[in-house]
């Protein structure tokens, strides 16, 4: 658009001219141009210059038949009307010039005459301006009238300007402006009407004139801003113009076309501008489409096709720029089908980028056409040469030859051949590529910002092709690479093919063998639409250097790579050949899971097992597949693992590799040939040396001696589809024959640790007893492994779960655990003595770490764990031995572990019970016991100053015999004085052995000497140990303490004592006394009753009442005769104290007597058993 | 008459397919059989939607697609619509068919159950009957999933049959 002349680009402005009084010109022209719409002023300083306005003299014989016009539009016509043909001329005179001196008046008159004659023949309007110095200066009427008459103008066209007065000046200037506006409008209307009349009368001899008139009418309409009329005539003009192409014969065909298109371009530009400025975007685009459509097929002869494409491209460029400058947006309010239903406009047509892209496309078309033309023309008529001094003619779109002969200069028309070679030589001077690139870049950036990735890619590709054409291969390569990514991703194989074809050539030109090979291989492995047509090689320019995508070209490319690698250069390759020394070295290609080269070679590795022991053999499958069109012969296949010991090499035996090349571990296989789309499956045996992860990293295939393709190994289970090939409608085969392996095979395997050849033995001797220091020997026997930097971890866990061996509440309250690991003592084998292990690293209540000394194979080591149970709990003991086989650092990282666990029960060794007993057949009345209602009284009540019996029993509840060393009652410190506790019977020997579930009883007499409602008697203190022959020492004794409950001590008011013989004989009467002692200082009334017993007959009252004096005893006696033998219940006595309203009944055990059938004869020792009988 | 024959054929094919996959091909791996049957259903659903959506505008949201499944798609397949559609508006839809055609011929014989109740394995037999029935439902689940996937909605479909022949399909759209 910038190439267009100014007058075409901007809307025309009316032009007026002022003559004379040059000092006022600046202010007047400034005032006029600041008007809306502005007005241009052609200021002529004095009247002598007025001749400029004169028409160029035309020596045309008015009688001669109208000549056919030599062209459609003169180039300068528009400019002329904008700069040299004013619509109105104002002659300026100073008032004193015309009113005073007659000579001056005459001068003014002649000036006016001159001016009149100059503008004669045109419609130019005349205005006379009189300049007054001051408003007050009176001008004589006759002067103005005379002047008016001279000038032959209306009175209103004579304007008086007042120079000195600001307001008058403005006022008069405004008047002038309005006069000018009016006159201009009339002028342009008249002119327009004049020419329009010619059109309407069809008063013209040729089409050219018709077009010219249309153009003129439209321009005049534009002058007066009558846009619809302008549009109408432009459209008419362009319509006639289009029709002219076929009919006109004035110029040779090629030049005719050039002229028509030049005019069309101008008029079209005018129309587009008008429409866009009026905001009619949709109409403008529709119009543009129409314009394009009417000219797209008018290419002309093939030699000058480039002119057409250049012109065509310019149309798009200019329209794009117009759209861009008017900054249109796609009208949202419009329906999606802008325009008519069948001729919908689309989104992109509102985007400048769309036009830039097409402009670039057509400019490229021009480049192709130009290449074609220059090659053909140069050959055919090279003799003709380029005609000299060709220049644009006065008519738009025409060229002539300037012919100079001496002084005479003639303008000669050109023949088409001359014009063609001229145009060709002109066109060849320009390098189109960079312009095309610039256009594509503009479009690319714009599409990119619109988010149209594919459009942008297409533009980017266009740029790249131009760079390639211009020989800038590195830029081209970079752009092509970017575009190829999108095509790869979306699977557009054909487009990718074209792209890679360019890339391959770029790599060749840049002498990069590795890139060349990888691009070539990728191309060869592409899936191609079977339907794509057979290529004809002439059209290489359009298909890119790769030609059409066919199977055979794929094969050729593959073969070419092989040839290069094997050093067999095909003739056409040696031309631009790679340096041979490059080929001498091998080329490495790396293929990972995202590489586009995956279609060239993919390696799938699967272990047959899930896990394996170290150094035991295991099978691994390696499967390779290639999509290359021809079979690929692999010379050598290296499979690499993360444990390099496992790496192996497979060598094809067909290749005679020099022996030095072959590894020791290489396996020879008859043939390693990959056929297209077929899996090559190999199975090999590996022996992992170390435990831990074993992963196949890569498979390196050496192809054609110099190409090493390193494929990242993939697991069949997680193998992705092949890019591009996954859309092909072909059967997919599995990498391994075994379907399970194909779906779940992994390239990674966990090698297990070697079996530990060390044994850890936990010796447990039954359940542990609460309170004792339970020792648990742990022995480590090395059976085959040396133990280095061994470490024994001990962990105690609650067997019922719950982890820690204490409840959270207890953890807060105290530090004590229910089960505690107290220490570890080691028994060193040499000394045999027990000593504390000094290398205990850490001991906590439930966790410990002990280091184990280095052991040679066959050695053993043991230690003892000391654990103490505070409560009966079942505990899991976990012992794990971690060690390494070597003492060196790196091997130390690799540790073996042996785990053992054992559940140990913690048991309470003894249950302790106690029982208070009153003296035999003696019953004190304990009021507290009677008053408190039954149940809630757990406290035992003891009578004051009475010797109560306390029986303490300890039952062995373990399954092992225990020794009881001591049983004692330790009174509280303050209770010692107040209550005497004496042991009546105790352990006679050093200890008493208690068999499982055996009970030991100790008897104590308790004689309280103080009245107390809650008296602490003290603690039962037991000392026990396991009854084992080993543990003789007293240290092993465990003291077990249990607090006796508090007792209630009170004085009893009445004590009932029954007296009867120790035994009685059937049928023999005996006396039974009941003594009631009143220990109070009060008179006590008692009631007394005796219930009949069927085993006895007795004499005496059943019921009785008595008063007992203080501190005296009342005795009630009965005579009884036993009627049955055996242990018999005496008649039941109930003594009731009236004062305390408390009844006292001796317990039935106290009221029993044994009846012998006859007089027994037994030794006195046996009588001892009587108390025992009472207890049970 | 002809229709009934065709319907019986479909019933027969469905049952035979389930029997073949569960009983013969993957007898030891029931979950693999289920996957295979579901995959067959997936392809069937995938291809059927191509046909059944041919003459209709594109669906603008998930609900519209689900409604299509409930109404038109179901009518094409079973000559009836889904009886009840529920959704939590967060990508889960429950399609309930009170009379699911492929389950109308299925029954769990209560007499057989009661006889077996005397022996100790009544629960296992009841389970296996339920398992067989649920195997029948992998195919329609796959159909629904295939149809929705083809409509651009990635989802998972499970079936739930509490009382025959009613059946509900739960569609969970993956986000």
């Amino acid at each position, binding site marked *: 658009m910038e190439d267009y002349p100014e007058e075409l680009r901007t809307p025309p402005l009316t032009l007026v001219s002022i003559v004379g009084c040059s000092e006022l010109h600046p202010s007047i022209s400034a005032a006029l141009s600041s008007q809306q719409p502005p007005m241009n002023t052609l200021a002529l300083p004095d009247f002598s210059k007025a001749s400029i306005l004169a028409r160029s003299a035309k020596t045309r014989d008015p009688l001669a038949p109208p000549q056919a016009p030599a062209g459609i539009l003169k180039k300068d016509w528009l400019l002329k009307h904008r700069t040299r043909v004013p619509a109105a001329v104002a002659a300026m005179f100073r008032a004193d010039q015309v009113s005073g001196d007659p000579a001056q008046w005459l001068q003014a008159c002649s000036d006016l005459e001159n001016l009149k004659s100059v503008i004669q023949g045109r419609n130019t309007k005349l205005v006379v301006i009189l300049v007054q110095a001051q408003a007050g200066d009176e001008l004589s009427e006759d002067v103005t009238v005379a002047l008016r008459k001279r000038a032959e103008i209306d009175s209103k066209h004579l304007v008086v300007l007042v120079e000195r007065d600001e307001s008058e000046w403005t006022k008069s200037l405004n008047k002038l402006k309005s006069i000018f506006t009016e006159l201009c409008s009339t002028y342009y209307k008249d002119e327009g009407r004049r020419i329009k009349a010619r059109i309407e009368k069809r008063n013209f001899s040729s089409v050219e004139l018709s077009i010219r008139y249309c153009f003129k009418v439209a321009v005049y309409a534009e002058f007066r801003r009558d846009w619809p009329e302008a549009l109408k005539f432009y459209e008419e003009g362009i319509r006639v113009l289009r029709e002219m192409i076929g009919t006109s014969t004035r110029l040779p065909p090629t030049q005719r076309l050039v002229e028509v298109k030049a005019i069309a371009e101008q008029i079209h530009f005018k129309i587009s501008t008008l429409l866009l400025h009026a905001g009619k975007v949709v109409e403008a685009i529709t119009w543009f489409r129409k314009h394009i459509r009417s000219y797209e097929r008018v290419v002309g002869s093939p030699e000058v096709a480039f002119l057409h494409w250049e012109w065509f491209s310019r149309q798009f460029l200019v329209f794009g720029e117009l759209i861009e400058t008017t900054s249109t947006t796609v009208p949202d309010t419009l329906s999606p089908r802008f325009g008519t239903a069948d001729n919908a406009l689309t989104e992109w047509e509102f985007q400048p980028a769309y036009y830039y892209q097409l402009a670039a496309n057509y400019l490229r078309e021009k480049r192709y056409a130009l290449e074609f033309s220059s090659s053909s023309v140069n050959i055919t008529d090279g003799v003709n040469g380029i005609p000299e001094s060709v220049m644009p003619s006065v008519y738009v779109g025409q060229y002539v030859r300037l012919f100079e002969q001496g002084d005479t200069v003639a303008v000669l028309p050109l023949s088409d051949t001359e014009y063609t070679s001229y145009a060709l030589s002109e066109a060849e001077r320009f390098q189109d590529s960079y312009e095309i690139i610039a256009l594509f870049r503009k479009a690319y950036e714009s599409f990119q910002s619109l988010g149209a990735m594919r459009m942008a890619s297409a533009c980017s590709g266009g740029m790249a092709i131009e760079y390639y054409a211009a020989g800038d291969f590195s830029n081209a390569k970079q752009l092509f690479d970017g575009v190829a990514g999108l095509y790869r991703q979306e699977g557009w194989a054909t487009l990718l093919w074209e792209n890679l074809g360019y890339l391959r050539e770029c790599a060749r030109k840049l002498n990069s063998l590795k890139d060349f090979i990888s691009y070539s291989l990728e191309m060869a492995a592409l899936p191609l639409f079977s339907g794509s047509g057979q290529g004809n090689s002439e059209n290489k320019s359009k298909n890119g250097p790769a030609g*059409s995508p066919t199977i055979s070209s794929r094969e050729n490319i593959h073969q070419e790579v092989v040839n290069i690698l094997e050093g067999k250069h095909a003739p056409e390759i040696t031309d631009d050949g790679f340096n041979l020394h490059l080929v001498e070295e091998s080329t490495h290609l790396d293929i990972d899971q995202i590489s586009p080269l995956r279609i060239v070679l993919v390696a799938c590795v699967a272990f047959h097992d899930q896990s394996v022991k170290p150094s035991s053999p295991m099978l691994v499958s390696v499967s390779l597949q290639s999509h290359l069109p021809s079979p690929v012969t692999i010379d050598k296949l290296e499979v690499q693992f993360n444990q390099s010991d496992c790496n192996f090499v497979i060598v094809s035996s067909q290749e005679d590799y020099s022996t030095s090349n072959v590894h020791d571990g290489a396996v020879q296989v008859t043939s390693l040939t990959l056929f297209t789309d077929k899996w090559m499956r190999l199975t090999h045996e590996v022996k992992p040396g170390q435990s831990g992860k074993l992963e196949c990293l890569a498979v390196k295939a050496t192809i054609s001696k110099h190409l090493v393709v390193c494929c990242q190994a993939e697991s069949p289970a997680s193998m992705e589809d092949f890019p591009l090939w996954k859309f092909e409608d072909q059967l997919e085969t599995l990498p391994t024959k075994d379907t399970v392996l194909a779906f779940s095979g992994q390239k990674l395997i966990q090698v297990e640790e070697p079996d530990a050849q060390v044994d850890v033995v936990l010796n447990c001797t039954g359940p542990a007893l609460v309170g004792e220091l339970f020792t648990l020997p742990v022995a480590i026997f090395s059976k085959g492994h040396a133990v280095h930097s061994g470490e024994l971890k001990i962990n105690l866990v609650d067997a019922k779960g719950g982890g820690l061996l204490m409840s959270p509440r207890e953890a807060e309250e105290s530090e004590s655990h229910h089960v505690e690991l107290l220490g570890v003592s080691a028994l060193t084998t040499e000394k045999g003595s027990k000593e504390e292990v000094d290398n205990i690293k850490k001991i906590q209540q439930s966790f410990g770490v002990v280091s184990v000394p280095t052991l040679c194979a066959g050695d053993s080591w043991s230690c003892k764990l000391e654990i103490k149970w505070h409560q009966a709990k079942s505990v899991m003991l976990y012992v794990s031995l971690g060690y390494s086989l070597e003492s060196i650092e790196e091997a130390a990282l690799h540790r073996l572990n042996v785990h053992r666990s054992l559940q140990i029960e913690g048991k309470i060794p003894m249950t302790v019970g106690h029982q208070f007993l009153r003296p035999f057949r003696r019953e004190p009345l304990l009021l507290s016991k009677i008053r408190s209602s039954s149940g809630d009284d757990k406290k035992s009540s003891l009578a004051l100053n009475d010797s109560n019996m306390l029986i303490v029993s300890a039952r062995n509840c373990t399954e092992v015999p225990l020794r009881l060393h001591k049983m004692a009652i330790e009174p509280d410190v303050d209770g010692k004085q107040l209550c005497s506790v004496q042991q009546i019977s105790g352990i006679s020997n050093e200890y008493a052995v208690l068999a499982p579930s055996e009970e030991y009883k100790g008897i104590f007499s308790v004689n309280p000497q103080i009245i107390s409602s809650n008296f602490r008697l003290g603690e039962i203190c037991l000392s026990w140990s396991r009854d084992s022959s080993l543990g003789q020492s007293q240290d092993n004794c465990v003291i077990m303490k249990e607090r006796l409950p508090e007792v209630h001590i009170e004085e009893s008011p009445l004590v009932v004592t029954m007296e009867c013989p120790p035994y009685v004989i059937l049928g023999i009467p005996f006396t039974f006394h009941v003594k009631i002692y009143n220990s109070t200082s009060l008179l006590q009334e008692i009631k007394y009753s005796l219930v009949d017993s069927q085993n006895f007959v007795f004499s005496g009252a059943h019921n009785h009442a008595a008063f007992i004096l203080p501190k005296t005893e009342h005795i009630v006696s009965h005579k009884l005769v036993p009627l049955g033998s055996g242990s018999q219940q005496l008649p039941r006595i109930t003594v009731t104290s009236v004062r305390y309203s408390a009844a006292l009944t001796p317990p039935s055990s106290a009221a029993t007597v044994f009846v012998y059938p006859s007089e027994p004869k037994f030794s006195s020792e046996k009588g001892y058993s009587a108390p025992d009988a009472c207890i049970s | 008459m002809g229709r009934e024959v065709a319907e019986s054929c479909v019933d027969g094919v469905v049952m035979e397919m389930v029997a073949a996959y569960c009983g013969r091909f993957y007898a030891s791996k029931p979950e693999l059989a289920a996957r295979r049957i579901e995959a067959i259903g997936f392809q069937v659903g995938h291809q059927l939607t191509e046909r059944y959506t041919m003459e209709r505008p594109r669906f603008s949201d998930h609900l519209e697609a689900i409604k299509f499944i409930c109404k038109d798609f179901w009518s094409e397949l079973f000559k009836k619509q889904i009886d009840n559609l529920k959704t939590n508006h967060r990508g889960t839809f429950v399609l309930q068919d009170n009379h699911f055609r492929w389950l109308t011929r299925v029954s769990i014989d209560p007499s057989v159950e009661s006889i077996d109740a005397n022996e100790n394995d009544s629960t296992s037999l009841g389970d296996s009957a339920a398992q067989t029935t649920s195997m029948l439902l992998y195919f329609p689940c796959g159909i629904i999933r295939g149809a929705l996937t083809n409509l651009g909605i990635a989802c998972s479909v499970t079936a739930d049959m509490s009382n025959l022949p009613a059946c509900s399909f739960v569609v969970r759209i993956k986000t």
Partner: protein
Amino acid sequence: MVVCVAVVGHQNNPLYLQSFTEADDALKLHHVVHCSLDVIDERVNNPKRNSPALNETFLGLLYPTENYKVYGYLTNTKAKFIMVTTDLDVKDADARNFFRKFHAAYVDAVSNPFHVPGKKIASRSFSARVSTIVRSFSSGTTA
């Protein structure tokens, strides 16, 4: 004349592309079809402008480029059909009709149980049917 028809899958990958020109511009047509996917994306993602024809499968003229006009169609199953024609005046109704027939052919092709969803359409009978549809379109509009 229809110069090219294409089926594009939902990953924007070509599933079927057939050109019907003597001239060797197959590659160019690939470009044209590929670029038209941008327009489809735009139409589908910003449907506000498509209010009258909301969610219609027929997308209308996608864009004119050089001497081609590109028409688009998007099925409910997100398969894109693209038709490239050199005809200057194409009635929307004709294009619509063309796509309807094409869709039917497509459905028949992909309903083949041996066709794996998502793969290229290699069916020969589909190609034959498409050729017929293309021919009938060309004759229909020129007549």
